[in-house]
């Protein structure tokens, strides 16, 4: 009897939350008012989960795909590049990656901590960004948490990061009237988006002024004559794309049907008769019943298989692009060794930039193509086409300089091998690529 009575009682809503301090960056302090959300949030400590292409374990992207080392030759991503894990690790991971050095700006903190909103309220974003990363090691200690997405007085979803506000404003969006369902995506779009550091002040900027599609982002960067680095092997002017999860998602069927990130990554959960949002953010494939089966009444196995079949296709085409691009980079280097001028190599380098930008849009995007299967494959096909055009042209350029046989492609079959090759180019003593 008592069980029946409690079960009926539990269906009554919680008392109103106790007040939370305006800049409370410690998520534990929010837990008194919202124990259910906090308990699930803490689950993100789990970092050993695995799915076929995702999960929270620290997959080494360079080991798994040594081609990455070649594609990022001369850039920090050739040193260290791991799969993301739960939000609670953000501080730990950004302070331990080899990608950070003395020259790293404070901008890199922006997406890693609940301390950032407070700091940004104290100083202007421009001031914050231009300082060195190391200047904030003491003030920034709390990983991503409640304050990043919630207003502590009303608990409403809110955009705390200026870069997103600014980008949306430049598009003419009225930030006061964003539909609630869209907010359930936009809180993620504060961080899970492509960005670049604009100008000397390293001002965090999202390249969306012409639109969200890769062709529009490309033309934004082209117009700004922006590049992140010069490729160590091919000397092409490269752009790195980072986790354009939001941009890719926008082109998919789920965005078309107005389904938000939170619908899949934070599905509703019921505990003791209370319905709440699951704050254990992770791969939905680890929680298919709650996240997908709400709309797709198939068995979990069927859902997983369908997702993996989409991901397998993306992976297959991605690999084709990676092979072609790696060869193209080496062929430019070989053409230089054979005596080709920068003028002759101008066009192939532009083609390589265009191709790799497209490849990276898909590769850096999480979910191995699932967020928008058709668009990802279309973009990869375009990348393949452009990279192949570069190769055909390079074959002719090489021939002009007397090289007709295939060039010697160095061994890049493991991370170590690839990093050796990469370093040899970075240090200015590349191997001979010309056949006898």
């Amino acid at each position, binding site marked *: *009897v008592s*069980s*029946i*009575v409690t*079960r*009926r009682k539990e*269906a*009554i*809503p919680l008392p109103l939350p106790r007040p939370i301090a305006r800049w409370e960056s410690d998520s534990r302090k929010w837990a008194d008012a919202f124990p259910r959300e906090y308990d699930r949030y803490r689950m993100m400590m789990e970092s050993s989960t695995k799915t076929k292409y995702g999960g929270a374990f620290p997959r080494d992207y360079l080991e798994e795909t040594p081609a990455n080392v070649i594609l990022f030759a001369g850039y920090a991503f050739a040193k260290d590049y791991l799969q993301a894990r739960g939000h609670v690790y953000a501080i730990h991971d950004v302070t331990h990656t080899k990608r950070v050095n003395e020259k790293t700006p404070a901008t890199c903190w922006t997406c890693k901590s609940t301390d950032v909103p407070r700091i940004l309220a104290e100083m202007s974003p421009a001031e914050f960004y231009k300082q060195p990363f190391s200047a904030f090691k003491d003030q920034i200690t709390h990983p991503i948490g409640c304050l990043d997405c919630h207003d502590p007085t009303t608990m409403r979803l809110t955009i705390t990061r200026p870069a997103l506000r600014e980008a949306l404003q430049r598009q003419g969006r009225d930030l006061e009237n964003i539909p609630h369902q869209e907010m359930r995506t936009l809180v993620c779009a504060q961080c899970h988006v492509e960005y670049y550091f604009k100008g000397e002040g390293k001002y965090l900027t999202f390249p969306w002024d012409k639109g969200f599609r890769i062709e529009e982002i490309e033309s934004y960067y082209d117009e700004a004559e922006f590049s992140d680095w010069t490729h160590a092997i091919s000397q092409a002017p490269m752009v790195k794309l980072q986790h354009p999860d939001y941009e890719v998602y926008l082109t998919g069927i789920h965005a078309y049907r107005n389904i938000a990130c939170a*619908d899949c990554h934070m*599905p*509703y*959960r*019921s505990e*003791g*008769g*209370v*319905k709440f949002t699951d704050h254990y953010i992770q791969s939905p494939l680890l929680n298919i*019943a*709650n996240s997908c*089966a*709400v*709309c797709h*009444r198939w068995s979990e196995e069927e859902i997983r298989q369908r997702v993996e079949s989409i991901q397998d296709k993306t992976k297959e085409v991605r690999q084709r692009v990676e092979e072609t691009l790696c060869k193209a980079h080496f062929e430019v280097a070989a053409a230089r060794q054979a005596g080709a001028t920068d003028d002759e190599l101008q066009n192939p380098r532009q083609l390589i930039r265009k191709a790799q930008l497209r490849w990276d849009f898909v590769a850096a995007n999480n979910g191995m193509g699932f967020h928008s299967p058709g668009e990802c494959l279309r973009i990869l096909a375009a990348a393949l086409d452009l990279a192949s055009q570069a190769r055909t042209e390079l074959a002719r350029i090489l021939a002009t300089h007397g090289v007709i046989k295939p060039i010697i492609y160095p061994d890049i079959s493991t991370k170590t091998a690839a990093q050796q090759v990469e370093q040899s180019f970075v240090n200015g003593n590349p191997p001979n690529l010309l056949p006898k």
Partner: protein
Amino acid sequence: MNQAMQAAIASSRQFIRALLRLAWFPPGLRLLMFAVFGVCVGLGALAVHTSRAPSYLSDEPEVCVNCHVMRPEYVSWRHSSHAEVAHCNDCHVPHDSFVNHWLFKARDGLWHATVFTMRWEPQVIHLSERAVPVVESNCRRCHERLVACTSLREHTAGDLRCWDCHGDVPHGETRGLASSPGYLDPSLPPVGPRSKGVTIGGRPPR
């Protein structure tokens, strides 16, 4: 009426009276036993009242929302084209024979109550295998004339179920918690010893 029968009646009356007074036990124990028995009956009645067990005998949809886990289905059905024409049991209980009807109802009712009380319910509820043909036969019961001229008139292995096409009938396209706004919509009727009358979402049920 003959003598023997009158004697028999008298002796059984005596026996019942003795039984009711627990005549075989010492008086102290008698009192205690009365008290325990009373509490049991009381609790039993409370349980029956709280869980609205008798309502299981009825066909009112409000019966189903006695358990909050049925709320999403209730809400989605309430807003569906079937809300005015078919109640839960029109679809979820067999209507082919009286016996089947009550057997199924009893079995499902007991099972659901057990699951609920034991907190065994899954995060996402699906139709059980047993329930699928029951629901489909009920679609056909109402719509049989409509489908009589197509192969839909019978179901053969591998065929689509009615709701493979009519996926939104009657529970909508999104199921489970995601389909009911807020925690409590509609709110559960108050229960307990002092609660009066049943209300659903502030109004009495039909």
